[in-house]
């Protein structure tokens, strides 16, 4: 029985609770990351997903353990939605050997091959060719796998994006392109960088099904992703979702946000994906404020435990510096 079918068999209310908890996990994790970064406990570039949680959470509902994910440098949400253990993600933030990338990657390079989570790619657009190749391998082996490839609106300006749209459509590859259109490529607004700002229209010009989705509504994202993945599995070739979303926080921790109005941010915050789902559930009598607080408290405890574990975890010895450059069995 497919995972989607399992979901249908469960109560819709229980499913919504799962979605809410998933989004809350990502939000709470990243709120903690802000604290840890400010306290000087974690370092480097940290790109927050706050505001965009519905996208990772919704898309993941359509995927099975045999599917693949290729992600970007703003990937904490994708990794947690995929089920990477909190300890391993937090360990990576701390650069410890318990991290999902053994501490070598940091915030931008979360990997977990056992969960078919292929990064954590920080060259904008650079993950798309990898997704093409993973999908090609699945197609050549006819194993039914789908590759979900996340990227932002910024990637649409890269040549690699267009090469990959063409290849995926030409070779009829099982890829779900998930374009997280949060309206800014770092500080450059979509309309300042693109002559045609309808991104689904541009993807559609390559001959694949492509449509915009309200990326602030987790149920809408889930519905779109499930129907796209179903079509891909049925041999319908690549699909493209333009997930219209917004990041509430700065591009990274260094960004003074000179390029957008505070009013705009506040307007989008009214559409907070967590608040929206919680409101729906409250109206349906599925959720009380006490439930919400209890869930937040439980997640905070879990994250605090992961932080304690990461603090206590061993740092890699300097003698191991050149490990992982070549495989140990390399000739």
């Amino acid at each position, binding site marked *: 029985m497919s995972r989607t079918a399992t979901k249908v068999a469960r109560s819709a209310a229980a499913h919504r609770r799962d979605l809410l908890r998933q989004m809350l996990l990502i939000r709470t994790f990243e709120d903690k990351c802000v604290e840890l970064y400010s306290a000087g406990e974690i370092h480097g570039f940290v790109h927050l997903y706050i505001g965009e949680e519905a996208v990772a959470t919704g898309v993941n509902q359509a995927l099975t353990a045999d599917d693949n994910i290729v992600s970007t440098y703003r990937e904490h949400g994708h990794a947690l939605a995929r089920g990477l253990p909190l300890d391993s993600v937090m360990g990576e933030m701390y650069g410890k050997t318990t991290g999902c990338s053994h501490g*070598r*990657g940091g915030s931008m390079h979360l990997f977990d091959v056992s969960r078919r989570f*292929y990064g954590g790619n920080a060259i904008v657009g650079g993950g798309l060719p*990898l997704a093409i190749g993973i999908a090609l391998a699945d197609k*050549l082996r006819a194993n039914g796998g789908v590759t979900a490839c996340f990227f932002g609106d910024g990637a649409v300006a890269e040549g*690699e994006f267009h090469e990959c749209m*063409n290849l995926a459509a030409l070779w009829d590859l099982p890829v779900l392109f998930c374009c997280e259109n949060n309206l800014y490529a770092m500080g450059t607004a979509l309309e300042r960088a693109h002559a045609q700002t309808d991104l689904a229209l541009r993807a559609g010009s390559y001959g694949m099904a492509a449509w915009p989705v309200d990326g602030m509504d987790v149920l809408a994202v889930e519905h779109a992703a499930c129907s796209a993945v179903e079509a891909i599995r049925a041999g319908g070739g690549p699909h493209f979702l333009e997930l219209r979303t917004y990041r509430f926080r700065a591009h990274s921790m260094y960004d003074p946000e000179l390029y957008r109005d505070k009013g705009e941010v506040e307007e989008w915050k009214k559409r907070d994906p967590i608040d929206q789902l919680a409101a729906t559930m409250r109206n349906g009598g599925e959720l009380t404020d006490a439930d919400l607080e209890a869930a937040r408290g439980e997640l905070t405890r879990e994250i605090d435990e992961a932080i304690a574990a990461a603090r206590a975890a061993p740092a890699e010895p300097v003698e191991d510096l*050149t490990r992982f450059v070549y*495989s140990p069995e390399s000739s």
Partner: protein
Amino acid sequence: MSSEMVKTTYREAMRAALREALQRDHRVFLMGEDVGRYGGCFAVSLGLLEEFGPERIRDTPLSESAFVGAGIGAAMAGMRPIVEIMTVNFSLLALDQIMNNAATLLHMSGGQCNVPLVIRMTTGAGRQVAAQHSHSLEGWYTHIPGIKVLAPATLADARGMLWTALQDPDPVLIFEHGSLYNMSGALPADAGAVDIRSAAVRRPGTDVSLITYGGTLGTALAAADALATDGVDAEVIDLRSLRPLDDKAITGSVAKTHRAVIVDEGWRTGSLAAEVSARIMEQAFWDLDAPVERVCGAEVPMPYPRHLEQAALPQADAIAAAARRAVG
């Protein structure tokens, strides 16, 4: 036990290697521009489409970054792709994928994502195809930890390096010098895999080491013949593997001859020749009886006219002159 010798060319040896790989390992496929119906822009893969079909001899659009990256993704997912790039100049369109992904993923993922990918490409000048099809940029690639770089200069290496490269868990780049495809000679009928770690002594000698690789091996051997008529006995070392370098073979030869001339078609500044020279200084300084000499490509984008192109390339007389200076 000697096997029957068969006449062949570098191109045919490479094709035989591709055929063997496709026959022996169902995970292997060849992908690149015009590798299928056209038969390869240098006719290396001619006939393979008919034999193995379009899934395994996969023509691509002119999208170097996408199809090199697709090779990386497929390799990560368990396939054994061979990606062909028409020339090293075009590989720059895929440099992001080679450097930021192929060479980096294993490390960035803490050892999880090895990339067993082979990338073949043509390199080098000599065919009057001017400044965007003629360069020798393999030295640039040797700068990158995480990849291996090979330069088959002989029929045996054209036949044998590919299979060994495919057994490697990490990315391997194979540079085929464009002037070598028509090189002919004889190979044992059962020629097969060769090691991809060691340099080879192509001509033993005692007075000076001519250290080279790829397209200039023949030039260095011609220089050695010329030197022999003057009574200078030159040893010719074929590096074969440009990353990693076989330090022992280099210093072993210098310990014997006490003089080194490095021949490299790449531009002199920041060249592979500079790296080899530095290693000799670091590891064999006290063995040297003369300063290390370098004969490199002239620092100019490759000109079209034949006389200027030849003037830009390492020639046997310049190599011999450098060797005579070293011998004193």
